């Protein structure tokens, strides 16, 4: 909703210089008053904050472009020694000490990221039964197979019928040593946009979880952090 009218009293125009000074005073009184110290952003990035602080900070990060940028720079700085590996439409890295696999989507548009397929891959358990078929949908995928020991990932992106500005993303995790279904539950999948955590899901017995209603335009800013059950180091 926008306000289109000028509600100043008729015949009493305000001096523009006064408005400029008032704006300047407002900036000095308000500028980043609600922002946490940068150290708190760093502790968030390192996973050192208590749950209640994480929730508060995540809510702030949703709105604050400056904290988002500072956090992204800190994250890049902290990650720079761990080299990214290239994938098709994404890059990935495996943090051996925590057992965490991070997949970051790379590309300018969904079309040049996802490899579009006419049918879901046949070797994906129960995928077909989870999704309804429709004539006006597109299915694409990113696949990381045989790159990390005992961990395979397929990320399926599917545009919504009659709502192509949103998509559903299915993350399928296979851990070969577990022998497949029904032993694939328990992998934590954290979805982030520009380093800001959006949500965390846990995979089901098929090794799947679905993120729905994701704006298609956001897809190229997403990353997925996967932590298979039992992989986390206690150190």
């Amino acid at each position, binding site marked *: *909703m*926008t*306000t*289109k*009218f*000028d*509600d*100043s009293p008729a015949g009493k125009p*305000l*001096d523009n*210089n*006064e*408005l400029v*000074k*008032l*704006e*300047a*005073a*407002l*900036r*000095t*009184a*308000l*500028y*980043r*008053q*609600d*922002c946490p*110290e*940068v*150290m708190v*952003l*760093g*502790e968030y*990035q*390192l996973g*050192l904050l*208590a749950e209640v602080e994480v929730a508060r900070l995540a809510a702030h990060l949703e*709105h*604050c*472009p*400056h904290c988002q940028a*500072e956090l992204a*720079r*800190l994250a*890049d*700085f*902290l990650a*720079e020694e761990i080299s990214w590996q290239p994938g098709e439409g994404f890059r990935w890295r495996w943090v051996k*000490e925590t057992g965490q696999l991070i997949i970051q989507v790379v590309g300018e548009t969904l079309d040049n990221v996802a490899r579009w397929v006419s049918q879901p891959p046949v070797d994906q358990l129960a995928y077909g039964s989870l999704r309804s078929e429709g004539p006006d949908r597109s299915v694409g995928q990113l696949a990381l197979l045989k790159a990390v020991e005992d961990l395979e990932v397929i990320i399926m992106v599917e545009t919504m019928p009659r709502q192509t500005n949103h998509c559903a993303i299915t993350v399928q995790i296979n851990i070969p040593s577990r022998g497949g279904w029904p032993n694939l539950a328990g992998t934590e999948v954290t979805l982030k946009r520009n380093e800001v955590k959006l949500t965390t899901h846990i995979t089901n017995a098929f090794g799947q979880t679905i993120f729905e209603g994701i704006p298609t335009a956001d897809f190229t800013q997403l990353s997925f952090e996967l932590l298979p059950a039992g992989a986390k180091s206690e*150190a």
Partner: protein
Amino acid sequence: MMSSFFSISQLAERCRAEAARYQQTGQSDEAYCLELFRLALREHNSEAWEAIYTQYQALAASWVYRYSRFPQTNEEADFFINEAFARMWRFASKPETAKKLSFSLSKCLRFLKMCVGSAIEEYLRQERRDVLLYAVGLEDYEEFFVSETDAPTNSALSAPALRRLLTETIQSEAERLVAEDSWGYDLAPRHIQLRHPDVFVTVESVSQVKKNLLKRLRRKLKKEFGDSRWPKNG
């Protein structure tokens, strides 16, 4: 505890030797360096902290030079090295954090690296605040706002009082977004429109909402405080 068998200087010596071995072979025993961190962070042992500073200041310096925004600061690297260690001492010696860090040398060093980045980011954040302050003109600012510690008077306007008045003046979600983005985040109308295209159809609509809000706030200020607290024009 290893510190029962070794003095701090012996631990520091072995830590140095293991770090050198790591440089040459890629292998080392991190126990000695880790024990120094444990003593410093969990037992607040200042001698251990000095040994850590000596051992890792060169590494911290390399991180300062590699931080992408360091050149924007026009400061000496030493300033940020000292600031990073001060931050680590202040934050990592909190019991919960110290406990989480003291099991792994890589976690301690990652924390120190984060302190380097945060010191530089905080410096630049403060610099931006200073720019905004000087844009008002320091003389005007002091004339306009009283210190928050001064005794309140009828004509005194503090920054919190201005924030309160603004909150009371805001009448719609569009105005709240404009206030937050314009003055809380210092964003231009074009950016505000891009952030909230569902609220603001055009850039002009952002400017109009802002102008209306400023005018009403100005009237409220005059009503509550008169003209005495307002910076003179020109």
